[in-house]
């Protein structure tokens, strides 16, 4: 993929922003179990991060997907994975369907302020009884005149505590299975909406994760994103953005982690020499550098497919492969970084401890590794496993 001087400047802007506006607060936000989204997001909105590929009519930049790659790679360098995840929920998980399928009114009301960073968005798919198996969701929206009346529970919702609106997936008919679901924009200030719990997590601790309860929540039918009944299909397309951005971020994060580990091994001495002078350690890191580089270039191939307008099946397969490999590699890299740091790597004061915790999510969130394998196997023609 060809990165121009403009890409490099955009990269530098984001890098400077992270160094000055995010990383100095990382420890504090981790301790608090939440970062101030309504303070941080408007600043990011000014840089254009929330609307990279979106229509300028709503404040977007109208740029191509290559700039999303740059943004993702750089956000991997956040000293707290939780903030990167929260930002990517707004850019690539909760808003792509609204941009693609939403009505003008809905976009003016919810997408434009999200692009400016004035509104915080969340994606609400997972439920207590349905995660991997999205078709098993039970949250139900029943039509009453011009309104949906929504009842249900959503679980593990990133940004859920701070969100101004949700992109909610709900059942809107009794057809069952993949049919009869719709995506609905639900503002969080409506009656019947509540955050039942802010969840405590292994990692990504600066990001707020919520359990959300919806009791007779009323929103206009016009809040439906795209076609009524097409929610599942629209959400499956939206998942591809989610999986790709996760892979872009992971390569940035892993490259940085390996660089820092290499640096440490050059300084730390044992048995009369720097640790890096042990061929085993240097080769192991080199092997991982090679794997990350392969993934980076696979990411670029995915991005090119998107830019060239590849069909949905191609993109689904590529995004699933990228996300699968990123999740597995991230675990390996984080484990190796902590191992090669020794005791200090296990200490909370060293970046490796947080990275180790944060890294574990990628193989679960946004579709577990096994779900990626299931999709790939299905596309290979080996049936629905």
């Amino acid at each position, binding site marked *: 993929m060809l990165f121009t001087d*403009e890409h490099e*400047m955009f990269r530098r*802007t984001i890098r*400077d*922003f992270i160094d000055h506006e995010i990383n100095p607060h990382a420890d504090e936000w981790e301790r608090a179990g939440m970062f101030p989204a309504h303070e941080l997001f408007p600043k990011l909105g*000014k*840089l254009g991060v929330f609307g*990279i590929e979106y229509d300028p009519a709503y404040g977007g930049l109208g*740029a191509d997907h290559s*700039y999303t790659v740059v943004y993702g790679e750089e956000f991997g360098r956040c000293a707290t994975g939780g903030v990167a995840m929260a930002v990517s929920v707004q850019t690539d998980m909760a808003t792509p369907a609204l941009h693609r399928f939403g009505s003008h009114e809905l976009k003016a009301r919810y997408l434009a302020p999200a692009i400016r960073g004035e509104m915080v968005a969340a994606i609400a798919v997972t439920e207590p009884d349905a995660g991997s198996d999205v078709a098993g969701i039970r949250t139900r929206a029943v039509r009453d005149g011009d309104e949906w009346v929504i009842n249900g529970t959503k679980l593990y919702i990133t940004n859920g505590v701070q969100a101004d609106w949700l992109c909610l997936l709900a059942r809107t008919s009794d057809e069952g299975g993949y049919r009869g679901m719709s995506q609905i924009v639900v503002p969080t200030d409506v009656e019947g909406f509540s955050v039942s719990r802010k969840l405590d997590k292994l990692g990504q601790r600066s990001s707020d994760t919520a359990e959300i309860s919806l009791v007779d929540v009323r929103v206009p039918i016009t809040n439906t994103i795209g076609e009524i009944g097409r929610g599942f299909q629209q959400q499956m397309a939206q998942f591809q953005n989610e999986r790709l951005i996760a892979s872009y971020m992971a390569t940035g994060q892993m490259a940085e982690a390996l660089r820092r580990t290499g640096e440490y091994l050059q300084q730390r001495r044992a048995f009369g020499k720097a640790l890096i002078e042990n061929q085993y350690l240097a080769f192991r890191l080199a092997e991982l550098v090679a794997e990350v580089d392969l993934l980076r270039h696979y990411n670029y191939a995915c991005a090119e497919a998107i830019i060239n307008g590849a069909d949905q099946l191609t993109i689904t397969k590529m995004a699933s492969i990228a996300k699968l490999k990123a999740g597995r590699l991230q675990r390996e890299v984080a484990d190796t970084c902590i191992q090669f740091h020794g005791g200090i790597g296990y200490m909370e004061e060293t970046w490796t401890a947080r990275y180790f915790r944060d890294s574990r999510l990628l193989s679960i969130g946004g579709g577990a590794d096994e779900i990626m394998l299931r999709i790939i196997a299905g596309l290979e023609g080996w049936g629905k496993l």
Partner: protein
Amino acid sequence: MNIVVCVKQIPDPAEPGSLDPGTKTLKRATKLILDESDSYGVEMALQLADAAGGGEVTLVSMAPNNEVSGLRTALAMGAAKAILISDPALAGSDALGTAKVLAAAIKRVEGADLILTATESSDGYTGTVPEQLAELLDLPSVTFAKHIEVSDGVVKVQRQTEAGYDDVECPLPAVVSVTAGVVEPRYPSFKGIMAAKSKPVDQLTIADLGIDPSQVGWAGAGQEIVSVEQAPARESGEIFEDDGTGAEKIVAFLENLKVI
């Protein structure tokens, strides 16, 4: 109001730099970036032009190899155009040589009301170019500005001092050096970056400026770097245990250093 900002493009401080053993100067063959010290002047200029309700911010930079990366950053922040002076004959220029070149370039900017510089560059650090520039342009010089206001052809500057600040006024045009950290430089936004692509950068040689090569570069330098030494390693600090007399010990320590 039209403002000229002198900006230096320097090797990225995040990358390990090195000195040329022959000339004892910093190697500059790498990609250069906008000196962070200058980002404050650029921001100040943009704010002043905004407050004045219009006018252009023009950048002036002298750099090897027609390097424009740093200029593009300042253009992406919002400057309107740039003049870049690049010439093999400029290699080895000292502070005065640099000031001569910048002054000649600034003279080409029509209707410049105010010329802003940093107080010193982050790589060379002589801290003398702004004053030399003022002298060569025959303009008043105000240094170490922490706040600048312009009204009715007069610039009012809060000039940072060790004790606080002086209020200084002088007629325009003038050369004002801006202290680092006094404003928060904006991040170049994506829109700014894209707009910067098509902003004009006027690339000049010293012949274009009518400067004699013997006046600049190694040939014209009145300064020479005679030797370079490693900075001494930092010594370990002194630790005071507070047994009830901690405050007195600290006061005595500071008095000894003559800082209080």
